[in-house]
């Protein structure tokens, strides 16, 4: 089913995030993939996806959300704001602080 696919794509994209990747090209590719996955979600499915993550997952998601804000495309900000609201509810302000203090960016 479509929902299941989106969720699987979501987890896969997070898992294959290039952690300490040096190459900017790799990072940009991962960002692009992540953005595609995030925008493919229906608003009603976001909360469930966020709740399926552990603490590190929420922090990583928050990093990608802010990366997405940096390079807005048509309609991307609207769906990202919804993701932001749900991620904030779970990760708290601490998850945003860690986006600001992170030395390894996504």
């Amino acid at each position, binding site marked *: 089913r479509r929902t299941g696919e989106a969720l699987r794509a979501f987890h896969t994209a997070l898992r294959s995030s290039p952690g300490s990747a040096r190459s900017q090209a790799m990072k940009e590719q991962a960002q692009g993939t992540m953005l595609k996955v995030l925008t493919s979600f229906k608003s009603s499915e976001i909360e469930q996806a966020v709740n399926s993550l552990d603490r590190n997952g929420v922090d990583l998601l928050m990093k990608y959300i802010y990366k997405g804000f940096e390079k807005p495309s048509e309609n991307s900000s609207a769906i990202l704001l919804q993701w932001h609201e749900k991620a904030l509810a779970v990760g708290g*302000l*601490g998850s945003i602080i860690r986006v600001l*203090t992170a030395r390894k960016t996504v």
Partner: protein
Amino acid sequence: MAYHSFLLEPISCHAWNKDRTQIALCPNNHEVHIYRKDGAKWSKVHELKEHNGQVTGIDWAPESNRLVTCGTDRNAYVWTLKGNVWKPTLVILRINRAARCVKWSPKENKFAVGSGSRLISICYFEQENDWWVCKHIKKPIRSTVLSLDWHPNNVLLAAGSCDFKCRIFSAYIKEVEERPSPTPWGSKMPFGELMFESSSSCGWVHSICFSASGSRVAWVSHDSTLCLADAGRKMAVASLCTETLPLLAVTFITENSLVAAGHDCCPMLFTYEESQGALSFGGKLDVPKQSSQRGLTARERFQNLDKKASSDTANATLDTLHKNSISQISVLTGGKDKCSQFCTTGMDGGMSIWDVKSLESALKDLKIK
């Protein structure tokens, strides 16, 4: 909880005397003011004026009743009470940046000063010259030392720095003490030896604290994390990414429980589960009494919408006791193993005393191990 508003400006730092009848604090300037408890009031009894820069650290030695202060003027002074006057003695720290924190060692024969010079000055009294001298611990510190705490053996010193690391050094001074016996942090402790270094977190280490036994050290960083290194588990580090704004101060209240506070203006409980080597959040300790949630009239809703573009009924004012960030926590009674009262001071110029038993009965889900 007893809250007293001392100032309208931040309290930069504070220290209590042995019997907790007097508190020395810096009112965000170059001075140290000492207040004495007078029934329910606090009266100012001394003003210590010697520093040429903001006083960044104060520590009050309980047994010898001496104060040590340090400031942005790159100096430290040891103060002794002669009659009813506090007399300062200058200590040359040999640093070229501001001093940021100071702590007496448990035996009060040494004190350590952390500074922006990226080193720690360990100061001790040289009898022959009637003068305080200091030795430096430099390597491998790469940035300002923001916080210090001594191990109960009077030799090991934990330091938190702006280079994102927590380290434990040996501050063994052969002139004033015997060789220390082995500890879980190591056996060889020549001066300056690095016994432990954490891997990088991503935030300045604001505050650091040894447990009462000294076998654990905890620290809080600017990336909203709380970490704990356990020498009993081969120095394994447990860390917790909190949901809060960065914490600025932390202390143990039992071997397994910590209280930390910071930019959320509210002290919080954290618990360390030794068997799993994990830290968990135990709850906020400042739960305001629920004021009756009255509904907004239609007119008030419209005004909110007009003024704040929000129909949210949530209060814009802080419900916590402290109305600004808490910058320091000190244990008042019970020690770090059985704390029964602790004190917080903050940027709102206020000082609050928290009673652990009252907190346990007021907040039913609170579990202090």
